[in-house]
């Protein structure tokens, strides 16, 4: 279980997280929605220790994040970055198999390559992209390579930062199914950030809405449509009228 308790983070004068409190049960899929720039990506980075919160506590299965063996802690996670964050000096398959080519999970090269190609297939990419460099791929293909890298070592906890942004509707459907499958069949815990409401419905067990640095609403996806929360309603309908200002 992942638990964030009253987490604050400020960049300069920009107060991004202002007391974020959230719980994600093991083996469930949590989707975080919220306006652009509200700190969704920062929240994920806080859990991974890439950004240090100013105050508040974050625990994963009772263990405080950032304490103890960092390698062992991070080995449980996979992360898809919003911008892909592929290593542009390495061919695609070496990006995907990064963990399997070095360190404690090191495998023979042939085997690492096979795993990479299998993961690429799962995100809808042909084996022929394996030897290309990330810069030679389209934006949506890069995103899917990032996704393949995030799931390559079969992590217990996976963070997806906008997995379907920039994908065509068919590919977005494939990715939604994949995320659902990873949670249901492999028992992984997933946290997904998305702006795509059809994706929310396809992926989520629970939904949390982040606004002005706090969780405005959280609950099971089935209750999302009759939450009675004006912020969430405005977000779902995508209306310019409502409590959320259109200029942020």
């Amino acid at each position, binding site marked *: 279980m992942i638990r964030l308790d009253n987490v604050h983070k400020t960049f300069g004068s920009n107060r991004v997280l202002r007391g974020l409190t959230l719980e994600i049960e093991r083996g469930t899929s949590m989707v975080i929605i919220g306006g652009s720039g509200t700190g969704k990506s920062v929240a994920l980075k806080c859990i991974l*220790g*890439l950004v240090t919160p100013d105050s508040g506590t974050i625990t994963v299965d009772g263990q405080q994040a950032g304490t103890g063996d960092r390698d062992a802690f991070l080995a449980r996670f996979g992360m898809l*970055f919003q911008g892909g964050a592929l290593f542009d000096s390495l061919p695609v398959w070496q990006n995907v198999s990064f963990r399997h080519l070095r360190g404690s999970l090191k495998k023979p090269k042939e085997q690492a390559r096979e795993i990479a190609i299998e993961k690429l297939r799962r995100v809808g990419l042909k084996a022929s992209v394996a030897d290309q460099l990330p810069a030679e791929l389209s934006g949506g293909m890069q995103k899917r390579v990032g996704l393949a890298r995030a799931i390559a070592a079969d992590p217990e906890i996976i963070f997806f930062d906008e997995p379907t942004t920039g994908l065509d509707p068919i590919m977005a459907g494939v990715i939604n199914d994949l995320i659902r499958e990873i949670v249901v069949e492999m028992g992984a815990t997933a946290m997904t950030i998305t702006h795509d409401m059809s994706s929310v419905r396809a992926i989520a067990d629970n939904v949390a809405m982040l606004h002005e640095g706090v969780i405005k609403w959280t609950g099971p996806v089935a209750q999302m449509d009759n939450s009675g929360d004006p912020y969430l309603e405005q977000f779902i309908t995508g209306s310019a009228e409502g409590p959320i200002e259109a200029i942020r």
Partner: protein
Amino acid sequence: MSSVLAPLALIGALTMNVLAKLGRFVLFLLRSFSHIFRPPYYPKEFAISLLTIGWLSLPVVGLTAIFTGGALALQIYSGGARFNAEAVVPQIVAIGMVRELGPVLVGLMIAARVTSSIAAEIATMKVTEQIDALVTLSTNPMKYLVVPRLLAALITVPLLVGIGDIIGIAGGYAVGVQNLGFNPAAYLKNTADFLELRDIVSSLVKGGVFGVIAALMGCFYGMHSDRGAQGVGRATKGSVEAAAILILAANFVLTGLFFSV
């Protein structure tokens, strides 16, 4: 009152800024070296660094050294002529190249070529979240990015300096024999007899120190880059400036240590 104090406040703020940066750098330096002694190691990255920092710098180093050696021979010949000391060309070229110009020019060329490329590469990785991605893939960026470059520079830059010294002397020799009428055998004998072990050791030690400075500055500025393309530009510029100035300052200190007595 406040306008009287404003300049003081500015000086204070600047001092704090410089001290903070210095503190960050010292921490970075200690951390870099501590990671050298702790596994895991990344031999492939190290091999690539040896290639890019050492081998691929050879043409630049060779060209710099040969022209400098040649020019030095011409200068000493014409300058020496003013007091009938033309004959010292081999000795002065040797000592000038080995003690001073070889290490300094190679160091500066490495700052231009290697520091800038390390800083730009690492800064780009930082702003595109590749450094964050490394961390989430259980790979320590200090071990994966910094240590291989640091070690490669520590090993290859002294070699480059040694090669630069030899090529510089060869440049002086070519000019001396072709244009200035020196006897080839006598030129070489004068050079060999005149150089001391201390000259050569100082040259290589300087090379090692300059290599470490060049690599560390590239890594430090890259890792601390601001966001965006401007951040990468600033990191690259800052790294080369800092490396060049530190190399010249270190050269002064090392020369003092080796030759003041």
